[in-house]
């Protein structure tokens, strides 16, 4: 799924400029890091892609679809093709790992047998099969992040959006999460992730887009976290 931002600005009321005149294109199957300081507009950029937020100016195209013009009734169907991993995991605490993953497919009216097969497979893929009957509060931060990844993978999306997926994780767990994201990307899925993790960006070199106060200031293929890093 190709993504194109054309002159996108987003101003939150009263006058907080989150993004300013952003032009960018992300091709199908790319792996992109969005980096920048806190408040630079990284999360807003992702929320524009998931259509939680509409641009104040400019257009966001995903495939052939202008997200502003998308009908409200089409949004759920669009989101089923976008795997979302939030920094705070956004898991339902009273459901088990299995149920958290399964309900995404149930919402699509997938038959129970298929749900069981697919949910078990993605939970296994993120290495949590033995914990599938536990509830999120019983899991560590890294495990919860992996549940969120499994849920995002459940519908086999063609676009994977992750907001600080390694934000609260230690080095080892971050590396595990990265391994999963890279394997998803290797299967042809476009992956866009925001991060503050310099080690991750510099270790797994991919395209880097840097935002500063809402402006796109750097777009580098196989870039580093910061342009003058010597890591």
């Amino acid at each position: 799924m190709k993504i194109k931002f054309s002159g996108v600005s987003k101003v939150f009321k009263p006058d907080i400029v989150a993004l300013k005149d952003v032009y960018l294109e992300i091709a199908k199957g790319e792996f992109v890091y969005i980096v920048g300081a806190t408040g630079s507009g990284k999360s807003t950029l992702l929320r524009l892609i998931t259509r939680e937020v509409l641009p104040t100016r400019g257009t966001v195209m995903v495939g052939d679809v202008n997200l502003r013009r998308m009908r409200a009734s089409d949004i759920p169907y669009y989101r089923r093709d976008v795997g979302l991993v939030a920094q705070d995991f956004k898991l339902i605490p009273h459901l088990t790992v299995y149920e958290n993953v399964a309900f995404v497919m149930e919402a699509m009216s997938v038959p129970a047998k298929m749900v069981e097969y697919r949910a078990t497979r993605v939970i296994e893929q993120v290495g949590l099969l033995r914990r599938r009957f536990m509830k999120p509060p019983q899991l560590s931060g890294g495990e919860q992040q992996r549940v969120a990844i499994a849920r995002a993978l459940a519908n086999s999306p063609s676009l994977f959006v992750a907001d600080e997926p390694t934000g609260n994780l230690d080095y080892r767990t971050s590396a595990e999460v990265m391994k999963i994201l890279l394997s998803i990307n290797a299967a042809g899925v476009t992956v866009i992730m925001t991060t503050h993790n310099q080690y991750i960006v510099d270790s797994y070199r991919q395209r880097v887009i840097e935002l500063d106060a809402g402006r796109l200031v750097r777009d580098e293929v196989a870039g580093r976290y910061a342009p003058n890093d010597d890591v």
Partner: protein
Amino acid sequence: MTTFRYILRDTGRLLIRHWFLGILTLITAAVMMWILGLTALFSLNVQNLLQKLESELVVQAYLRRGSEVGAVADRIRAMDSVTSLRALSPEESLAKLQARMGSQAHALDLIGENPLSWNFEIRVRSAQDVPNLARTLMAMEEIEDVIYAGMVVDRVASISRVASRAAVLMFLLSIMVTSLVVYNTIHISLYSRREEIGIMFLVGATRSYISTPFVLEGTFLAFLGSVVAVLGITSAYLPGIRLLQNSLPFLSLVADRRTIGQFGILLVGFGATLGWVCSCIVVARFMSSTTKPL
């Protein structure tokens, strides 16, 4: 079918998760529907009594001598407010008068010739129709005089009006309170799950998939509340009516099981519909505010 099964399961989960709130709603809905049911039954009985009273109201119209009795009677029968008409000959009227006068009936002999003309005893549909009917009759050439119990008619008409208004007011009040209770329960249920609903929207669940369990929850609670209310009404109303009729046998009250059964079914249907409408409104409002993009 698969979606329906998932939705039913989620409705069950909602009811179990919010069981305490559910029981509170059920009790409140039952109490309100009970009041609503009793108000309706009271109103039904008042209407019944008034109807009986009204059906006994008679307008007496006296014809001019030489008028065509049959033709005039047909014209009056054709009027909307008239339910029945009985024509009394001068002889019948005199006999009635003599019977009413009792021991003083011999005074009528002094008059000699029967002074009474043909007259009609007209029964009307409602007390409120009487003054208009009397005016219309007086305007007819063939009618010499019209007699009716003006004060009684006015009293019955005004009691009927007040009783109807009071019943409508009670009815509306009960509906309002029941609606508010169901509305608030579903709102609390939605509010306590707002984060979960937000997540469901983010992962691609449709509005109807998310909303339906909440609508079913509200409808089910209102339905169950109505069933409890109907059981309460029938177990208290029928013995109560029997007791009242034993001490006041002349009172005509609604007491047959068939009518009460139909009334119960109507009340349960009404309760469930009320729950469904309230739930739909609150869910639609909540979903609109939740899904609005920033």
